[in-house]
């Protein structure tokens, strides 16, 4: 049996099975935790023996340490009323357990979820509806509230944002003129006139904003446990749903809506609620900028190493050094990015091209460009190694055939070698992208922030703002999971974000793999 190598086969198979099991377990944990996040959990109301009432959804059940009975963890929400989102209840202490039909869950822009019974709807202090009618009225008004909020947001971020941007630009022009010693004259007057005009436009928009806000006078009164009530301005209500009365289709619809909100909306509540769209956008854009930078650089370096450099001790040493570079801790690259890109390169750019903005840095601070460059540096060994391996796999005869036809070395490289090595380049790029998308440490110090006010790509000229700070899913996971004020409430969000990051990495990879397959079919080359 030993001679046949049977145990060895088992050993190899076992190792593979173990690795697969670990990966499957990890993905499984993430998926199970993430998937349930948006599902409307049933609400229970428990009355304890001492008369205390808790209303919330059960999130966890465990044995009480040292006893035979169990206890449950209720998500009671209403952080502003109770002070904590969760409460542990010992099951033996529960006198009554019911599932009330009138309790609703209100998602709001501040303070997390609100759980309770809607008792009144008020308009400018006067009661408009009460009792069950209040909830119906609230539901009826909700679409209008949402529309109004969207319009206010559009004015604030769109119109006023654009004016602010223009004002800042005009101010910088003025400051630039001042630095040149010009404080009077036609140029200065023109800029001042522009500023005045912008100010006038700002005021019209501000007036419109105030007018729109006039329409937000309504509020809703919610009764929670222990006779506590909360009057909530309607403007803060994002969504209302009552899990105990929802049927399956309604729950599925709710789930889909939440899922969409998660991928398409901005975050709320210091990232623990709402969506992660800016983080998705930032991650994908950073990976793309990095790819655009790392591919040509890595490929050119690999071509020099393999095609032009005289193979010898020095080139071998360089090769080993490049391989070792892949093992340098990423935070070291981050520190280099800060020290070199941000302080030296960015600082010089600021002094040369943006002196009017100083001491406020433009490029002399973290931004998507520097973060991408740092990651390009981090991933360049991967691209070099993959490209070099591809080059080594191209038969000598292929190059000779081209040279024998009278092609120069350059023509051979560009027309024969480069197309043949493209699949290998893409392999390197896939590995580089996977690494870059998952990297956090170097990004934290080179431009990723908890909440970025604007995307690096938008409608204001020059559209691509490489100096802007951005959000990133990897950092988002760290931030929500470990830095948020309410870690427990944010935990499902962490899993959901993790799942999303995994999906994005898989998607980016699939894209590159498909591209590689197509190229391989086209050239049917044996090169890896």
């Amino acid at each position, binding site marked *: 049996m030993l001679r046949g190598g049977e145990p060895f086969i088992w050993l190899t198979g076992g190792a593979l099975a173990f690795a697969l099991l670990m990966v499957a377990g990890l993905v499984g944990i993430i998926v199970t935790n993430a998937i349930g996040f948006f599902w409307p959990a049933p609400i229970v109301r428990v009355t304890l023996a001492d008369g205390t009432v808790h209303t919330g959804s059960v999130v966890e059940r465990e044995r009480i340490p040292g006893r035979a009975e169990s206890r449950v963890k209720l998500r009671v929400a209403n952080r502003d009323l109770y002070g904590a989102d969760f409460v542990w209840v010992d099951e033996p202490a529960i006198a009554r357990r019911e599932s009330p039909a009138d309790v609703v869950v209100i998602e709001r822009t501040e303070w997390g979820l609100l759980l309770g019974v809607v008792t009144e709807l008020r308009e400018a202090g006067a009661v408009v509806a009460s009792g069950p009618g209040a909830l119906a009225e609230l539901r009826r008004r909700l679409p209008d509230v949402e529309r109004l909020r969207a319009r206010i947001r559009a004015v604030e971020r769109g119109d006023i944002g654009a004016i602010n941007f223009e004002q800042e630009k005009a101010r910088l022009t003025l400051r630039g003129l001042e630095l040149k010693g010009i404080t009077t004259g036609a140029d200065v007057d023109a800029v001042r006139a522009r500023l005045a005009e912008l100010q006038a436009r700002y005021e019209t928009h501000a007036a419109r904003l105030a007018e729109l806000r006039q329409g937000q006078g309504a509020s809703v009164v919610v009764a929670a446990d222990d006779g506590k009530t909360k009057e909530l301005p309607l403007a803060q209500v994002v969504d209302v749903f009552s899990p105990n009365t929802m049927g399956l289709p309604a729950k599925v619809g709710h789930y889909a809506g939440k899922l969409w909100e998660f991928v398409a909306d901005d975050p709320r509540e210091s990232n623990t609620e709402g969506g992660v769209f800016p983080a998705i956008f930032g991650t994908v854009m950073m990976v793309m900028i990095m790819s655009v930078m790392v591919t040509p650089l890595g490929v050119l370096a690999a071509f020099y190493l393999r095609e032009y450099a005289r193979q010898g001790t020095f080139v071998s040493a360089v090769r080993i050094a490049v391989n070792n570079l892949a093992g340098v801790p990423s935070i070291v690259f981050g520190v280099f990015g800060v020290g070199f890109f941000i302080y030296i390169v960015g600082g010089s750019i600021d002094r040369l091209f943006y002196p009017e903005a100083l001491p406020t840095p433009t490029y002399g601070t973290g931004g998507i460009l520097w973060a991408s460059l740092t990651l390009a540096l981090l991933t360049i060994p991967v691209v070099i190694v993959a490209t070099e391996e591809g080059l080594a796999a191209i038969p000598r005869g292929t190059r*000779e055939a*081209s*040279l*024998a036809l*009278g*092609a120069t070395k350059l023509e051979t490289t560009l027309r024969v070698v480069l197309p043949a090595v493209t699949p290998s380049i893409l392999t390197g790029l896939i590995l580089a992208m996977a690494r870059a998308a998952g990297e956090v440490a170097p990004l934290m110090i080179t431009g990723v922030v908890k909440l970025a006010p604007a995307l690096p790509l938008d409608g204001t000229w020059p559209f691509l703002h490489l100096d802007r700070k951005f959000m990133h899913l990897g950092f988002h996971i760290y931030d929500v999971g470990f830095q948020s004020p309410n870690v427990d409430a944010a935990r499902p969000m962490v899993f959901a974000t993790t799942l999303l990051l995994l999906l994005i990495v898989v998607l980016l990879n699939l894209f590159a793999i498909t591209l590689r397959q197509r190229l391989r079919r086209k*050239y049917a080359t044996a090169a890896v």
Partner: protein
Amino acid sequence: MVTLNPAAAPASMLEAPMVEIDTLNLWYGTKQALRDVSMSVPKQRVTAYIGPSGCGKSTLLRCLNRMNDLVDGVRIEGTVRIGGVDVYDPALDVTELRKRVGMVFQKSNPFPKSIYENVAYGPRILGVKNRGDLDGIVERSLRSAALWDEVSDRLGDSALGLSGGQQQRLCIARAIAVEPDVLLMDEPCSALDPIATAKIEELMLDLKNSYTIVIVTHNMQQAARVSDYTGFMLLGELVEFGVTRELFTSPRDKRTEDYITGRFG
């Protein structure tokens, strides 16, 4: 004309020479691979080099289009003239030379591109851009290489999907697409089965009407079948060079006789 190798005189004097080699010596580092080789290759004939492995026949062939330049530490003395032009003239553009001297390698080496692009590669390098012109060249070259009928309906397919024999004929088509004066073939059939070999041999007989062909082979029957002139090489020396039939029937050198009668090699 004074020839240093008397054995070569009768054959090469008879016809107009295309390639003239004069006291060619070549070293790879300190190892001498060619010793005082002198001969001339007649125009529009098939000339074969035979000899045991490592005798320098491939090296000699690769001197004709300066492919040896790619090897590190090579040193060459003597002259090679093709169509009267000194191949090792420092002022000569190597790529120009290689456009005039095509080569087919031992192992078929089509580019990882389509069949069409393989043949069009050389003309494109020469600056032919017009699609119609290229189409014409591709068809003519593939026809000359007796491959057109087999691939005309799938010119866009990868060349690596062809059989070994087809690939080698594609390499021939690729080489003749730039209309060279001389076609060098370095054991072109060594990796092919007998049927594919027969096709290539037939092709060579066709091609010699337009091109001067120099072939290296370790298959003596092949040399006897296809070549007009044969040179026998041993340890870097051109031992004997003459009309193929004479060399095989009445060799003048004892070593040639030993080799062709199978006493060594």
